[in-house]
């Protein structure tokens, strides 16, 4: 809402500078966005009087003017305009002035034009930043010749002389206060804020005799959508431009002046916050106005020339046959005011907010009127608005108002009071404001206090309960005067197991050298192809956004992997030589028959190092360390099965991927990425990834750590070298060693793998170091030998032979 300070001054005199005004209104609840001044880009432009004008000796289209700018001697200015005559009053930009040129501020200095001195410039409307809407008598491409509605004092600042110096304050009006989307509403707020009177009089008009009912009739068919409809009639209408004071108030409010009747409706809307509509009764067939729901498929061509198809939930203003306006949104093309209009109907009505909102949205035309109606205006406002329109017609002398008017008011409501309990308000706010002071605040805001109840003025649609009253009191008392206190009582807060687990994971993974990333949780469905998901992958079943910003962000991710891959890709694109990243975030999995998807938390790791410093076992090491830190139970590392729970398996190198299974549940997958995946993401080096199902893992882990006594007796270390088939997995050998060695085995460590010379083709050699220890006494050689014999025998059964 742009407020003209000149207009505001018609009603209140705040007696303060603009900054104080803005701060005070902001703190009492009407937030000021900014304030500006009209024509502030103009400087040193004054009213000039053309005392002489002669043709330029060296040009067939230029003139040399002698302009009196109030400085004694006239100044010589050359102009190319053809519409300047001796005796005219013109805007003269003097030497070292600024004006507008093609929308930008430019500096004017003296110079020579074809040999003749020119000490400035005569200005057109455009160079002042105005149009012929602001001064209808001016011509478009010529110098602006000041009319009688301007101050012609020679040398006077042009902005002052033509009334182009209003200050404008832009307010952010919240949706609960449509009454403040008006000059009167803000005048009342300003008056209450500064505790000064608001000089607002009820509009009055004389009118002429005549019975409105003989001229037109109104019927509300759907009172649920139209609680009140007022109509008035003006005859002997003279369409023409509005006077300057009215035009400049519209301009300052961001509305373009059109003609007196259209201007009056806009003026009243801006002043009272009540949208008005003026139409030519000639085009209302049968002079009967019906307010009804549209018929399905009915069409209307609106004022903007577009044909629109209506549907049954929309409310229209119709004559006997057809809609002439979409109620509260826009008038029809043929019902508007024409130059030859002689009789005008003013409509001042109230329409249901939700209905107007839905209609405007469906038709895709949000107008000044609909923006006000949709917030839910009070029907009480239609009366003063219509009276003000009548008053303005008489002030402008542009028609004769028929004294009687139509007022259909099926939706009249009793005003209900709100319990006014000053003690409760103080208790709620934490303040100690005396009752008299509270009452005074409410009275300033035009509340009526009666029998323990507060009655809000009709335009305050937002006052419904005690808390609303508390806010009224608080905002005039001053939010910043309310004390700052500490909440009473003690509360104990602690992290949940999940929150602790998340922190553990995040800290561990960071400690292992990975940077935490944050990515968007919606992705493109095409990303599934990039990670090579099969067509029938369950991960392709997504939560789809019906109104996405673009395809790239149109489905909720069912796997974190593509998000992490995008990060690897982007880092490689900017030539980062390494990227170690992880994200701990949600996936969104639709569940058949459920309204909402599930949102399981996942850890996803992605990394590459162009220098080749990492491999499969780096990522495996990270996962192992993480599991250890999390307190995971014993687990198995194996190649993923056909039916692995990790649909992302297709993104990995088939020979270099593994899953972690603990207590029968797969909790993690990790490995090297498939060359095609790398290619799809423009990665020119090997990259690795892992995904951990966090809640599943948490269920298996224990936070409990128990101390085991340190060993009292020395350990015996035995090394073991064996050869076996290449295909025999290290994990099998290790588990064979463990089960054969039994409880005396403390640790087993693979320290060498060898293939090549001295080892047969298809075989490998593995060397282990076994640590044996007893907690009962020092192990004897015999005891150790016995264990080793068992191990060797068991290994032999698996096809692993001891190398001598």
């Amino acid at each position: 809402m742009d407020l003209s300070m000149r207009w505001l001054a018609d009603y209140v005199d705040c007696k303060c500078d603009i900054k104080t005004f803005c701060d005070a209104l902001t703190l009492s609840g009407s937030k000021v966005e900014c304030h500006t001044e009209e024509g502030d880009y103009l400087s040193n432009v004054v009213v000039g009087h053309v005392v002489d004008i002669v043709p330029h000796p060296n040009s067939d289209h230029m003139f040399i003017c002698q302009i009196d700018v109030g400085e004694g001697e006239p100044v010589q200015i050359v102009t190319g305009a053809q519409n300047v005559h001796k005796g005219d009053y013109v805007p003269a930009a003097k030497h070292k002035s600024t004006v507008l040129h093609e929308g930008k501020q430019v500096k004017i200095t003296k110079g020579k034009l074809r040999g003749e001195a020119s000490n400035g410039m005569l200005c057109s409307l455009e160079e002042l930043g105005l149009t012929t809407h602001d001064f209808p008598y001016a011509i478009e491409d010529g110098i602006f010749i000041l009319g009688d509605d301007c101050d012609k004092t020679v040398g006077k600042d042009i902005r002052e002389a033509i009334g182009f110096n209003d200050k404008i304050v832009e307010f952010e009006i919240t949706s609960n206060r449509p009454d403040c989307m008006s000059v009167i509403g803000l005048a009342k707020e300003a008056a209450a804020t500064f505790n000064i009177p608001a000089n607002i009089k009820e509009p009055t008009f004389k009118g002429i005799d005549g019975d409105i009912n003989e001229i037109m009739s109104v019927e509300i068919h759907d009172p649920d959508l139209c609680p009140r409809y007022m109509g008035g009639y003006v005859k002997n209408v003279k369409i023409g431009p509005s006077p300057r004071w009215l035009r400049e108030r519209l301009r300052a409010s961001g509305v373009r002046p059109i003609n007196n009747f259209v201007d009056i409706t806009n003026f009243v809307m801006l002043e009272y916050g009540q949208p008005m509509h003026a139409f030519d009764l000639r085009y209302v067939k049968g002079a009967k106005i019906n307010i009804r729901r549209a018929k399905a498929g009915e069409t209307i061509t609106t004022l903007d020339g577009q044909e629109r198809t209506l549907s049954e939930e929309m409310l229209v203003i119709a004559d006997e046959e057809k809609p002439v306006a979409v109620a509260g949104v826009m008038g029809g093309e043929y019902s508007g005011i024409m130059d030859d209009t002689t009789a005008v109907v003013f409509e001042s009505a109230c329409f249901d907010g939700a209905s107007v909102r839905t209609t405007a949205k469906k038709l895709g035309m949000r107008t000044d009127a609909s923006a006000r109606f949709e917030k839910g205006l009070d029907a009480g406002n239609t009366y003063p608005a219509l009276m003000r329109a009548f008053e303005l017609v008489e002030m402008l002398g542009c028609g004769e108002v028929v004294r009687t008017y139509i007022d259909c008011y099926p939706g009249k409501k009793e005003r209900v009071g709100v319990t006014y309990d000053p003690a409760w308000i103080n208790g709620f706010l934490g303040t100690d404001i005396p009752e008299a002071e509270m009452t005074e605040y409410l009275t300033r805001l035009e509340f009526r206090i009666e029998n323990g109840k507060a009655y809000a003025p009709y335009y305050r649609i937002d006052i419904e309960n005690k808390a609303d009253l508390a806010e009224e009191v608080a905002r005039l008392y001053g939010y910043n005067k309310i004390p700052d206190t500490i909440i009473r009582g003690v509360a104990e807060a602690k992290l949940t197991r999940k929150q602790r687990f998340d922190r553990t994971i995040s800290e561990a993974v960071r400690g292992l050298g990975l940077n935490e990333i944050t990515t968007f949780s919606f992705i493109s469905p095409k990303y599934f192809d990039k990670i090579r998901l099969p067509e029938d992958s369950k991960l392709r079943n997504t939560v789809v956004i019906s109104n996405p910003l673009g395809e790239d962000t149109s489905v909720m991710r069912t796997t974190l992997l593509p998000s992490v891959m995008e990060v690897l890709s982007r880092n490689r694109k900017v030539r980062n030589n390494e990227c170690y990243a992880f994200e701990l975030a949600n996936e969104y999995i639709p569940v058949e028959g459920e309204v909402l998807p599930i949102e399981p938390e996942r850890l996803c790791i992605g990394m590459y190092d162009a220098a080749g410093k990492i491999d499969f076992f780096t990522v495996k090491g990270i996962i192992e360390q993480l599991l250890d830190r999390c307190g995971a139970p014993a687990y198995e590392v194996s190649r993923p099965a056909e039916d692995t729970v990790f649909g992302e398996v297709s993104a990995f190198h088939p020979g270099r991927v593994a899953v972690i299974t603990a207590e029968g549940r797969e909790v993690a997958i990790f490995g090297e990425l498939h060359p095609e995946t790398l290619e799809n993401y423009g990665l020119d080096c090997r990259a690795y990834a892992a995904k951990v199902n966090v809640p599943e893992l948490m269920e298996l882990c224990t936070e409990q750590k128990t101390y085991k006594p340190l060993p009292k007796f020395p350990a015996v270390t035995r090394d073991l070298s064996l050869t076996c088939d290449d295909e025999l997995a290290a994990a099998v050998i290790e588990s064979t060693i463990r089960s054969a060695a039994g409880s005396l085995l403390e640790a087993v460590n693979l320290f060498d793998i060898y293939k090549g010379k001295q080892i047969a083709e298809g075989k490998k050699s593995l060397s282990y170091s076994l640590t044996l220890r007893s907690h009962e006494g020092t192990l004897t050689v015999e005891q150790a030998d016995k264990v080793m014999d068992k191990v060797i025998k068991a290994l032999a059964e698996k096809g692993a032979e001891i190398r001598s």
Partner: protein
Amino acid sequence: MKEKLKAIEAAAREKLAKAADLKELDEIRVEYLGKKGAITSILKQMGGLSPEERPVIGQLANSVRADIDEMLRSAQNAIKTKAAAKKLEAERIDVTLPGKSHRLGKAHPLNATLAEVEEVFLGMGFDIVEGPEVETDHYCFEALNMPKHHPARDTQDTFYINENVLLRTQTSSVQIRTMEKMKPPIRIISPGAVYRSDAVDATHSPIFHQIEGLVIDKGITMADLKGTLEMLLKRLYGEETQLRFRPHHFPYTEPSAEVDLMCFNCHGKGCSMCKQEGYVELLGAGMVHPKVLSECGIDPEVYSGFAFGIGLERITMGRYNINDMRLLYENDMRFLNQF
């Protein structure tokens, strides 16, 4: 014999003074103190002495042995010290060479900031509660006093899955879920991702993060709300932090407030950093609307409460002087490594 012993001692002293390493010292030791050494051979000749001379010479021989032994030891120490010093000297390195890097991952700046905010609230007795991001219209809007067609919905451009399901535009939905489940007293914060259909630019993102707080109990006042936020923001921004509360409107709170932070640059006078306002808008807050309480089965005649919502991006960007929100989601390692 006396003279002999004296001569032995003098000779040993001379040799020791010349000895350069431990091996030479050992040779000297054997020569004089060994089983076949000079002292031993003297002692062996003791039998030929008179009973009067014997103890005198014996004593002298022992004293000479002790002296040589002592000399040996100190020579040994001197040589060791010298060798050690030489070794240390040889091992001198250029300490300005770069360190061997151990990779240490960094927390994302958003999460680092969140962790700090959470810590403040845990200290004030607030539990941390999470909830779904894909949410029903009921929890995101209706229960928050924003029925269908409510004009305030306009300010929260929403991504819809279908008519009834959407991506939450605020984490207040979690507060509703909490109020339905828990009875007062309630003290929670609900951090998390929220969604609004804004195109990506330096100050907008279709996904951003909020931390919303909720306190419900008997006798909770607006002054408590002010005190709580004052404490939080002073912890986050320092003791000199100055706040400004001004009236605003949210459908789910009444009274509602927006809280501004006095511009650190100009201290409220107005400058280019705060767009001449002197204050920077920081968060929204208010007393929980009685309708919202009733909707969740909490009697507004008995209980009252406050709620607030902070944008995590805004605080984070302010803390680290980040001028473009996109940096937070691009995850360039050169950016992340800075935190």
